[in-house]
């Protein structure tokens, strides 16, 4: 059964999703345990795959028993096994944490919510593992359709409109990607990534391949929420329901960032991307702009959730900038940042989700004196804030350190100073919240004080996953040396 791990990884949650939707009509209570079981199995399988990938270096699995250029093949190497583990663990912990809220908020449509939840995870896991360009488009569509409907279930007055804008931008992005794949197909005649990579070197001069690369990149960047194309992200993520957002926010943009890195590394070889493309430096400049604008716009927000969405936009700027600097350390920093940022964003959104469930709205002045009432949640919030800023023991510091040293090596000093400025702005952002939560005691007698008096800590089964995520930040920080040494370096050594 070990040989079938890549296929099992995706099909077990898929089969479970269909069984859950069927049994949500027959026997409602069995939906949650089934969903938890399926995610647990996919977590275990992804960890097993990581072990196999480290041992064997590269696993290829032929779907339907056909050779790659004719059938579809899965390619698993240490890099995407790492992303797989991050995606499935975040999904599993998130379901445990938000199960209570889902049961209460979507009581009559619970089965549909779990089905969309699992299909979203199937789409993401498939995107990370697949070795076929068109199969990646179909999985991208599954992840986005489930994303649209999960986001649309939020507040009745703003969520459907922002979700519809997300539909338009997302469809344009997916169609640009499809167009890019079409241009590759018309020139090379094959859709398998390894096959295309073998055929491409002879075609580098032709303009069609250049345009194919640009369109694939623009499409992926729209889905990623990269700066000039991020207009759909803040609204879509702020008005979505909190169980859906603590799932979508950390995962969707990071997996698309991984797809961009994979396009650079394993389809259009780095020689083509960095050497012949003068646009590489332009994208690093764009990334600096993304980081700065993300941080500045975050400063101007009163609503904490909206502020966090702009922080996501600036984090994406880190990853894209790191990937396009072109040298080994910057790319290691970008990949490490994908993993760290997934965990950081997940922990922050889980904490904010818990607070917004207790307090109703997440305005800044509602945070007055919150620390006395919800010590553990605020503790986790502070830990993830420190990690986003990049304080040494947590994992955020290490990926930033690799990015800065890579930028030094590549000699683009603008990227270095932008990194430092944005860290400073993050410091201001988070300490503004911590200061109101710790020291400002709410003026007695107004509505907020009455509200504050009778809330207490969030329920236990959301608190433990939150504390596990916060602890994970520190653990990942400690072991980032081994993660880089054992997993990322060997995978990148051959290519860059």
């Amino acid at each position: 059964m070990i040989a079938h791990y890549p296929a099992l990884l995706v099909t077990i949650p898929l089969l479970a999703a269909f069984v859950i939707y069927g049994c949500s009509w027959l026997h409602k209570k069995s939906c949650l345990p089934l969903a938890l079981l399926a995610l647990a199995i996919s977590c275990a399988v992804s960890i097993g795959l990581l072990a196999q990938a480290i041992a064997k270096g590269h696993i290829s699995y032929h779907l339907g028993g056909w050779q790659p250029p004719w059938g579809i093949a899965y390619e698993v190497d240490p890099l995407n096994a790492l992303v797989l583990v991050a995606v499935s663990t975040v999904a599993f912990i998130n379901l445990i944490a938000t199960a209570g809220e889902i049961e209460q908020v979507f009581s009559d449509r619970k089965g549909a919510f779990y089905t969309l939840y699992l299909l979203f995870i199937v789409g993401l896991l498939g995107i990370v593992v697949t070795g076929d360009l068109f199969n990646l488009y179909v999985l991208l569509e599954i992840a986005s359709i489930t994303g649209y409907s999960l986001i649309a279930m939020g507040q009745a007055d703003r969520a459907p409109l922002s979700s519809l804008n997300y539909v338009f931008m997302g469809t344009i992005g997916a169609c640009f990607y499809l167009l890019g794949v079409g241009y590759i197909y018309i020139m090379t005649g094959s859709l398998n990534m390894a096959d295309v990579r073998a055929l491409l070197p002879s075609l580098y001069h032709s303009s069609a391949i250049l345009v194919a690369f640009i369109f694939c990149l623009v499409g992926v960047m729209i889905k990623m929420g990269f700066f000039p194309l991020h207009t759909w992200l803040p609204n879509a993520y702020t008005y979505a329901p909190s169980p859906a957002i603590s799932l979508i926010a950390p995962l969707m943009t990071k997996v698309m960032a991984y797809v961009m890195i994979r396009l650079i590394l394993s389809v259009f070889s780095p020689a083509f991307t960095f050497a012949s493309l003068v646009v590489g430096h332009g994208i690093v400049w764009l990334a600096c702009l993304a980081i700065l604008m993300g941080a500045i716009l975050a400063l101007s927000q009163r609503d904490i959730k909206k502020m966090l969405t702009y922080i996501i936009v600036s984090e994406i700027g880190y990853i894209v900038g790191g990937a396009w600097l072109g040298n080994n350390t910057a790319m290691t920093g970008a990949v490490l940042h994908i993993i760290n940022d997934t965990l950081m964003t997940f922990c922050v959104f889980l904490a904010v989700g818990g607070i917004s469930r207790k307090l109703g709205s997440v305005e800044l002045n509602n945070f007055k004196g919150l620390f006395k009432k919800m010590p553990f949640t605020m503790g986790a919030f502070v830990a993830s804030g420190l990690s986003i800023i990049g304080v040494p023991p947590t994992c955020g510091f290490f990926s930033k350190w690799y990015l800065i040293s890579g930028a030094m090596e590549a000699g683009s000093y603008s990227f270095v100073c932008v990194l430092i400025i944005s860290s400073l702005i993050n410091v201001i952002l988070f300490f503004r919240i911590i200061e109101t939560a710790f020291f400002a005691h709410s003026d007695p007698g107004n509505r907020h004080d009455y509200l504050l008096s009778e809330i207490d800590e969030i329920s236990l089964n959301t608190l433990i996953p939150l504390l596990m995520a916060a602890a994970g930040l520190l653990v990942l920080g400690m072991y980032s040396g081994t993660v880089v040494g054992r997993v990322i370096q060997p995978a990148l050594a051959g290519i860059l």
Partner: protein
Amino acid sequence: MNMEAFLNHLVAKYNFWLYIILMMIGLYAMIAKNNLIKKLVGMNIFQTAIILFYVSIGSKRGGTIPILEHVSGGAQHAIDPANYVNPLPHVLMLTAIVVSVSTFGVALALAIKIYQRYKTLEEDEILTRIRES
């Protein structure tokens, strides 16, 4: 001379020019139109234009439909791929059509949900009502 070269270059690939025109119509409608459902129509035109591009990749002059005459159990005569149309883009496009219809269905459901809340489908009216509330 390059005018004539440009002409036969244009005629040789007129199908590719067409799909670009259709894509621009779709993109224009999605961006410029005020009504949400009109934007949806633009989105669908955009997707069908890409499907037209894919199918015109696979078409061959003089190629028949990719269904092989099945002599029941008869000797397998050599099939020359030149006189059959390339079937792979057709498979990809079956997927793309189905994806565009399901996105169309979900987007219509969202438009109805917006209409239930705001009683209008015009983008500017909705934004003014959001600002009021």
